[in-house]
């Protein structure tokens, strides 16, 4: 069987896995945004206890490997009576993990919004919440796009770790196929190519997004 024929035969199964990979990545990145922004705001504007809690979260999550976190969620939690499906465990693990990294990207972006603009906002009579909403956040979203793009691409690739807890993403499918047809080399070349295509498409989209949201003149 030629490489092309083989590819043709295994592609449907691999694309099923690809769909799971994309789903995992997109939901996890969204969880990461929704958790990451409040954590970042807490690290910049929070009082001492909020700052401490947010910093603690970021340090713990960034200080331990994603794989370890996934194992704790999937293999560890059942011992205290919490059973998660592989897919859910992967989602939660990747989402929380990404939240910690994104929080740092968002924090960097928040802090690069010029202090003088905040002073101008307060001078107009805005409360801190208003200044954050109308001045800081809109600029944060623009400033964060380049580093955030990296996070999305990393996350897509790190989703392969979900294979280790049996989530049926693309690596799992590849492993399954290879264990049946023993064409390990070819199978994973195809898997690699699928990842590559996904990453290239994402980069292109992110690039367009960055340009779309750039501030004229800056």
């Amino acid at each position, binding site marked *: 069987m030629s490489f092309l024929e083989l590819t043709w035969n295994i592609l449907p199964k691999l694309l099923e896995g690809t769909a799971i990979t994309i789903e995992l990545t997109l939901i996890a990145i969204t969880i990461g945004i929704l958790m990451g922004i409040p954590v970042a705001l807490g690290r910049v504007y929070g009082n001492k206890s909020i700052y401490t809690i947010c910093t603690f979260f970021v340090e713990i999550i960034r200080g331990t490997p994603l794989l370890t976190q996934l194992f704790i969620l999937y293999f560890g939690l059942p011992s205290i009576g919490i059973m998660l499906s592989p897919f859910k465990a992967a989602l939660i693990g990747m989402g929380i993990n990404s939240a910690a990294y994104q929080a740092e990207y968002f924090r960097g972006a928040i802090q690069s919004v*010029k202090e003088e603009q905040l002073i*101008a906002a307060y001078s*107009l*009579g*805005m409360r801190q919440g208003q200044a954050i909403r109308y001045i800081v956040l809109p*600029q944060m979203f623009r400033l964060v796009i380049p580093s955030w793009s990296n996070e999305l691409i990393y996350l897509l690739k790190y989703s392969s770790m979900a294979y280790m807890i049996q989530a049926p993403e693309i690596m799992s499918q590849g492993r399954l196929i290879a264990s049946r047809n023993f064409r390990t080399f070819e199978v994973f070349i195809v898997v690699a190519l699928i990842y590559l295509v996904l990453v290239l498409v994402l980069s292109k989209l992110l690039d367009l997004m960055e340009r779309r949201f750039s501030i*004229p003149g800056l």
Partner: protein
Amino acid sequence: MPEVILKVENLYKSYGELTVLNGISFQVRQGETTVIIGTSGTGKSTLLTCINLITPPDKGRIWLEEIEITDPKTDINLVRSSIGMVFQHFNLFTHLTVLDNVRLGLTVVKKIPKDRATAISIEKLNLVGLADKLNSYPAQLSGGQQQRVSIARALAMDPKLILFDEPTSALDPELIGEVLNVMVKLAESGMTMVVVSHEMGFARAVANDIIFMENGIIVEEGDPETMFHHSRNPRTQEFLHKITELYGGRPK
């Protein structure tokens, strides 16, 4: 005599060992322009930011009309919305168009409906000669244009007075005139203004009152005629002499 609109009484501010304001008292009357002069690092800018409590003073009291700004019970956001502030570096919101820069305070702080806020903003931008730049972004404008936007932003809030913190110091010399012209127009229209500036031409032309500050205190205060020609204080004379040599009688 017009009534007093701003009253500053015995203001103190230190940063650690460094005393920036060492007991400042002065008054500003309705419709008058007060120009604060003095060498850099003598607390002029700190004094301005103390007036709207962006920099909280350590001691002393400030009144805007009959409201005591320094009273902890005063709603400081409300007070700030009625004191305009124009900064040395313009401090425009870089992600917003010229129109939105001017309009934001109206819709967010004053809760004015968008269409009315737009009309007010355009009117003020017209006043500073920028009605044709509504949809430009700050980074697409010259420094002089940016500073005029920031004046329009302050004006739109319908403030009781406007504080100018070295509004022309960051501008290229050929752009200073357009900003000063707007300020002269404002002063003549009866806006109450407190201006920290080295522009002696402007001070001479429109100031009702000139305050000379040094080392955190007011050394001398008086109308332009007194300050420029009949000053009793050698430091004032020396400073005015030097600064006039440097900045001269620039545009009216």
